[in-house]
């Protein structure tokens, strides 16, 4: 008895914060805060009232389900849609396995994704689509249980993620005439592909440029700096136009279609920003690390590969996620050139005489999709940042 009493922890006094107390502290603590609160409430009331009235009485939301396929995949042929689902399944398997192996953030994303598929299956969609959705949930769930606890698989899964990029590209494209021409890629699918290509391909390029800019050989440093600062000094739209207009002039004979030209433009643009992000990481590696590596006898390549890059890249992951978000939004610029990405689809739907005057509904829908993706990614980036901060070796 006595022992128990001794070991019993002394708990802090229970704070007596009722809802009334909270309101007083956070909304009405001074006269001007009270005033602000009242003004804000009035503003919110009218804003919500106006919006909800519009959304439920005036807005014609029919335009969204009627064009849903267009928003998602553009003019991707219906009979080839299994390619998209296969790509989704590849990602689902990897995601499920990763969720099982690492848990945490990836697990939460996997659950959220399953939720999205589940809700999609409940919506009034075609039977086949419903089947594909449920299949995706099954994929995630099965691979989650397969991957659970098998830490030995981790390097394989990481390799799988890297390999998934080219594999998915091939799956989406298919071969020759029987496949799906890149000019038929569209909607959210195209937006995502452009952003992913922009980040993935620009990564090695950016690392190379950053290393060049940090080099102690002046000629190499100048060339790299000139490239980076030139690209960062001009708007993306000029780079995209240049890709569109100048690639055929500079590379005659090569038949490069518009989607590819945009990919090239975005990659070259993104590489300059990637280089600056990576450079930030390189500068964060203390000079003592270089010295120690030299003292051990490592040469430049070894020092860079085994000592500097592993430390630098780890610290720039949040910045790269931030860049990915920016790029994801920036891909909307391809709609100016004439590609039918998510924004391009929105524009073309409005131009359709059947759906005249529905700008607000259509753009709002596109905005919500963009928002959900960007917000999810910035949420992930904050999570990664805390993870890196805590488990910093």
């Amino acid at each position, binding site marked *: 008895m006595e022992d128990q009493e001794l070991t019993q922890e002394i708990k802090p006094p229970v704070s007596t914060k009722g809802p009334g107390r909270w309101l007083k502290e*956070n*909304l009405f*603590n001074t006269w001007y*805060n009270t005033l*602000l*609160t009242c003004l*804000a*409430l009035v503003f*919110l009331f009218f804003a919500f009232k106006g919006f909800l009235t519009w959304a439920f009485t005036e807005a014609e939301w029919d335009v969204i389900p009627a064009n849903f396929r267009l928003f998602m995949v553009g003019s991707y042929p219906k009979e080839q849609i299994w390619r998209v689902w296969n790509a989704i399944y590849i990602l689902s398997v990897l995601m499920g396995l990763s969720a099982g192996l690492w848990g945490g953030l990836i697990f939460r994303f996997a659950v959220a994704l399953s939720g999205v598929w589940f809700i999609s299956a409940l919506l009034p969609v075609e039977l086949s689509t419903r089947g594909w959705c449920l299949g995706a949930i099954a994929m995630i769930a099965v691979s989650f249980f397969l991957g659970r606890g098998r830490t030995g698989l981790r390097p394989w899964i990481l390799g799988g993620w890297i390999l998934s990029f080219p594999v998915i590209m091939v799956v989406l494209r298919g071969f020759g005439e029987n496949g799906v021409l890149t000019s038929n890629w569209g909607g959210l699918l195209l937006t995502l592909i452009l952003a992913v290509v922009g980040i993935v391909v620009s990564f090695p390029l950016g690392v190379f440029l950053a290393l060049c800019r940090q080099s102690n*050989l*002046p*000629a*190499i440093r100048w*060339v790299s700096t000139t490239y980076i*600062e*030139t690209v*960062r*000094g*001009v*708007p*993306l*739209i*000029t780079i995209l*136009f*240049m890709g569109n*207009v*100048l690639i*055929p*002039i*500079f*590379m*005659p004979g090569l038949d490069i279609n518009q989607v590819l030209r945009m990919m090239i433009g975005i990659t070259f643009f993104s590489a300059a920003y990637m280089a600056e992000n990576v450079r930030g990481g390189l500068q964060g590696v203390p000079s003592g690390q270089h010295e120690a590596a030299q003292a051990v006898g490592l040469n430049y390549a070894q020092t860079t590969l085994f000592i500097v890059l592993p430390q630098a890249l780890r610290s720039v992951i949040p910045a790269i996620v931030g860049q990915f*978000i920016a790029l994801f*939004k*920036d891909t*909307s*610029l391809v*709609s*100016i050139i004439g590609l039918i990405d998510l*924004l391009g689809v*929105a*524009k073309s739907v*409005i131009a359709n005489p059947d759906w005249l005057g529905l*700008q*607000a509904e259509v*753009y*709002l829908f*596109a*905005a919500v999709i*963009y*928002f959900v993706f*960007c*917000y999810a990614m*910035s949420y992930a980036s904050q999570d990664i940042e805390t993870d890196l901060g805590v488990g910093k070796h």
Partner: protein
Amino acid sequence: MENNSPTTVSGKIPFWRDVRVLRVLFQGIFLLGVILLLAILYRNMLEGLRGLGLTLNFNFLQDEAGFDISEGPIAYDPSDTYLKAFCVGILNTLSISIIGIVCATLIGLLFGIARLSSNWLIRTIAAAYVECFRNIPLLLQIIFWYTAVVAQLPNVRESISLFGGAFINNRGIYLPSPEPTSSLKIWLWFLGAGLLLAVILYIVRWRQLQQLDRPGFPAKWALPAFLIVALCGWFLTPGRPFTLDLPALQGFNYQGGMRFTPEFSSLLIGLSIYTSAFIAEVVRSGIQSVVKGQREAARSVGLKEGQTLRLVVLPQAIPIIVPPLTSQYLNLAKNSSLATAVAFPDLFHVGDTMMNQTGQSIPVFAMIMVSYLVMSLTTSAAMNWYNRWITRIGR
């Protein structure tokens, strides 16, 4: 390795092992590669141009442009040269950028400070504002303002009237503008005198503060003195220095006053709101990074809330805020090129038209890039200079 005499004497190192030679060699090969790449591109370009029947020069700039530009700060006529058309584009880019920067800064400051408010509701609204507008592509926002808001405004006959002097309709926003009158000159004399007085008072006060060896605000006398003289001048001048030119309905449209076109307005709204969301974050994190300990230290020395903010928090927060703020300004200037989506005749849009008309894509691209680069580089240079200055006086 066991020999005791030096294996080499300086000067007799084989070149493939000599660090100095290797450095030069490596750079040479690198440069050669870059030059080779550029040469190939150049050759391809010449061939491509020959195929299109074009030659590479800037002579076309002196030709008559032949296309109209809907708006601009200087008078322009389709019979003017391409060069002048391009200049109008540059001026339009500059004006939208500068006005946009002012608006974005004001809105951003407001929401940045609101995010630090002790009022939960205000804080939450500000956070929602920031998250909402920075996570949606700017282009989508601009098009939304243009097609779903500005274009849906009532027509000219049913204009929304504000205070009887400002009108909003789907042709644009009409505001009263001040028009200088003949008595402006007299008032300018008053202003000059006021400025002189202010400078004298400033110096006197500054000297006095130095002699007293006390901190103070040297413009304490100068500022009110200037305002008083300016105000007196306003009333003493016969007539008024300015009259208000009110927009008025004439025929099918409003005439007089200042007009913001729908294109300009929606671009300005889009740019300002989008950038303000980022500026709000810059301001918030800048102030928050001046750690709590600094504030507590200031309070423990006995500084009042206002003094803490003025003497401790802001001097430390401003140098942190300025660099990311500048890069936001640069982003805004570059993003103004999205004007082309709503056909506002900015630098890029005018350039695009020029390319379509003349086919001279390469020279025009060069001009566009150089224009943007000059803007970016001068701004960065100014910021670097400011940074050095602020860190020097900060110490």
